[in-house]
């Protein structure tokens, strides 16, 4: 039966090349654009190198200090004091890492007077390399002793090592001049894609406590406000709940200790999933996010509009099969059986179109990678200007991607084939058989 079915479909493709080509092209286009959107967000959400623990990673980027006397409030990061007193002492957490936000790029001095190179640098701590699973080509991560002592050591990416030193081997122990400071390289890692935003950098160095503290705003008035952001790794949902309780206790103790300012965490720590879609700290629901609303709108129209479009094509196609359906009804085929058959036959075309669409989506993601991954971001900042993010195989060829394609194909097939087929099969048998071909 499956063989007959398959032969019938192949015959249909050959018989009506016009219908086949239009249907498959329309489906491919719709699936391609849908998959571009879906993969761009999949890359931000799924575990990719080195952010393998995204599911259990939480972020605390801001705090709000609300003045009690008037309505003024200050949204900023945390100071080194806050990091050491509140976060490094947390009990319900696997790992805690803090990093200093760097508003402008850093510059590395190229040897032999070749000038300077702008790089992305992270000023962090040794725990950073325990949260993110970097692959070390040489050496090791920042050490606790160097961090405590304030020694200038750095971990660099392999690509940067090749640009600066001409090679990515025998780099450990060499000196990197960045920001007019000399760092001793202690490790070389495989460079991550800039799409892994939380962990991407070309140089990783330890933040200097004293220097970082002096950069904090309103120091003295708000000693816990500064420029640090904190990343937390938990092992399970239960630990996350306990962590939130512990942080709530910290907030309560702080607010009870003074009455000038009220500390609010605004729902933090934020899960990775939420952080991808959240535009502002104050958004309580994902639907408040412009990125989420834009994504839902775009996905709906990308499937719905071409689906309605192809309904017309299928309605025309069904007309030529009305007599066939009429004869089969006289032999006892029920409407449900015929409907299922028509929808399944169309599913073959949809899957063919889906395959072409997926290949087209891959091509679009690679060719337009400079801007397509940030297309729905309302505030991209200066992230990708002039840079081409690395798009790796694990991002494009994941099983989840194929499952998504299959799911969208099913949805698309239902939208485009179900209604016109059902309407066509409603006709009485006599009328179907007498219908002029």
């Amino acid at each position, binding site marked *: 039966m499956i063989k007959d079915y398959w032969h019938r479909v192949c015959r249909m493709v050959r018989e009506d090349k016009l*219908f086949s080509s239009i249907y498959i092209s329309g489906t491919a*286009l719709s699936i391609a654009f849908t998959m571009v959107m879906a993969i761009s967000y999949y890359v931000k959400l799924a575990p990719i190198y080195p952010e393998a623990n995204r599911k259990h990673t939480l972020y605390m980027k801001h705090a709000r200090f609300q003045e009690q006397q008037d309505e003024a409030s200050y949204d900023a990061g945390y100071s080194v004091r806050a990091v050491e007193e509140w976060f490094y002492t947390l009990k319900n957490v696997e790992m805690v890492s803090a990093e200093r936000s760097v508003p402008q790029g850093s*510059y590395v001095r190229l040897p032999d007077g070749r*000038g300077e190179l702008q790089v992305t640098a992270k000023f962090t701590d040794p725990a950073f390399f325990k949260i993110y699973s970097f692959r070390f080509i040489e050496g090791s991560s920042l050490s606790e002793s160097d961090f405590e002592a304030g020694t200038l050591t750095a971990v660099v990416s392999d690509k940067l090592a090749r640009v600066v030193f001409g090679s990515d081997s025998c780099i450990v122990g060499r000196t990197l001049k960045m920001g007019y*400071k000399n760092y001793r390289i202690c490790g070389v890692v495989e460079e991550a894609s800039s799409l892994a935003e939380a962990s991407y950098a070309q140089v990783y160095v330890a933040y200097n406590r004293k220097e970082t503290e002096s950069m904090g705003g309103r120091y003295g008035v708000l000693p816990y406000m500064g420029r640090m952001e904190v990343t937390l790794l938990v092992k399970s949902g239960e630990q996350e709940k306990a962590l939130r309780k512990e942080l709530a206790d910290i907030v309560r103790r702080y607010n009870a200790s003074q009455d000038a300012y009220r500390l609010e965490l605004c729902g933090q720590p934020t899960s990775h999933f939420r952080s991808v879609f959240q535009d502002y700290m104050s958004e309580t629901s994902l639907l408040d996010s412009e990125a989420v609303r834009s994504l839902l709108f*775009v996905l709906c*129209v*990308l499937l719905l509009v071409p689906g309605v479009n192809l309904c017309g094509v299928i309605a*025309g196609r069904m007309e030529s099969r009305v007599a066939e359906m009429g004869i089969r009804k006289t032999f006892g085929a029920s409407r449900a059986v015929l409907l299922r058959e028509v929808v399944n036959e169309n599913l073959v075309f949809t899957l063919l179109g889906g395959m072409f669409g997926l290949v087209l989506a891959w091509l679009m993601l690679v060719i337009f990678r400079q801007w397509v991954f940030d297309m729905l971001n309302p*505030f991209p900042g200066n992230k990708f200007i002039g840079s081409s993010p690395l798009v790796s195989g694990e991002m494009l060829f994941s099983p989840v991607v194929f499952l998504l394609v299959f799911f969208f194909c099913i949805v698309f097939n239902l939208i485009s084939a179900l209604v016109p087929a059902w309407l066509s099969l409603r006709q009485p048998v006599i009328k179907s058989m007498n219908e002029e071909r």
Partner: protein
Amino acid sequence: MFKIILKNLWSRRNYNVWLFLELILVTVIAWVVVNPVVQLLHNRSLPLGYDADRLCLIKLDSDWSEDVRDTLTTREEAVRIIADRLQGMEEVENVLLEYYSTSLGTEFVWRGKYSSKFRPDSPVETFQLIFQKGKKYFETFGIKSLPGSPSPEQLSEGINVPNGVVVTRSFAIALFGTDRVVGDSISLCGQNEDRYSRIVGVVEDVRVRSYSDVATVVFSTDMYPMNQLPHIVVRLREGVSPSLFSEKIAAQSNRELCSGRQFIRSILPFEDLARQTEYSFGITNEVRLDIALAVFFMVSLCLGVVGSFWFQTRRRKEEIFIMRSFGATRRTIVSMLLGEGVVMVTMAVFVGCMAYLQYIHQVGTQSIRELWEEGFFVDSCFSNFTFHFTVVSFIVYVLLLAVVCLGIYIPARRT
């Protein structure tokens, strides 16, 4: 023929309903995606109000190699020395010191509300820009003054009036109803009520950002405590290329053009600065997404129309042969089919636009104009809602008509 077209459309309504539905959906979506693109193109076509040609922003950085932090005063002094050295270069016409958020072309610009003595309850929201007296500010930016106002040179030198400000034409009209306001007083809301600033000059309108409409602007010399280093704006002489100048600076910056721990990090022509600002604010992304969606829907619509009308011409072969036998030419038949498409598109666009109009009235008519910023914009052709809606609807209609006619012509020419 029009009656025949309507009869044909009605008799095939079962097949045409899907196309019609799709045309309505695409009309609404096309409106959403075409509107920002049309607005951006319109805004970019407006004069900037200042001359961005050969204007460059010079960003400075500090050398922290000795791990010693200079005071802000020391760094400011170093910046002034660099500015003086740049002024001495033959390629440079003029040099200004500007502060971020009070300068044309930067990402964030201060805002405030000003009122007048006679209209204290109707303040006007405006951008606030700061300039330094005696530094040829208006000449460097190429901002022109209105007749009846002092010349740009006089305004730059500074009229000896305490708290003197310069305003743009649109601000003057918004607050006073006329642009002859030299000598009138305005007050910044939120400040001391007795503190008035005197208008010493009126200049032509400027656009603070490349993507936005003309806005009200007040230029003041009041230097608020700026806890930041200034950056340098340079006007190059005629015939000097910004890229060559940038290369020359890069070669010299470590030797001749540094002072103390300050040195020149980069030079950015104002055109590039505008593109960067548009990107950071998501304007570029939005336009790219809109264009990508527009192309997608038009191609998709074209495929659907080609498919539908190809089936129709196949089904209507007998009818077409009969018409040909009665003397109808191929041209007549193609015109009839195109006519069916035109009528369908016209009806669908009308329905789609009316449906979207209801939505706009619910969310507020300013939502179609204030896409990227609120409140400061002066009246332009796009501030008239009816005009704005009509223009964009017409553009959508023309686009859809072109796509549908192409989709019909491809199968129809085979008849």
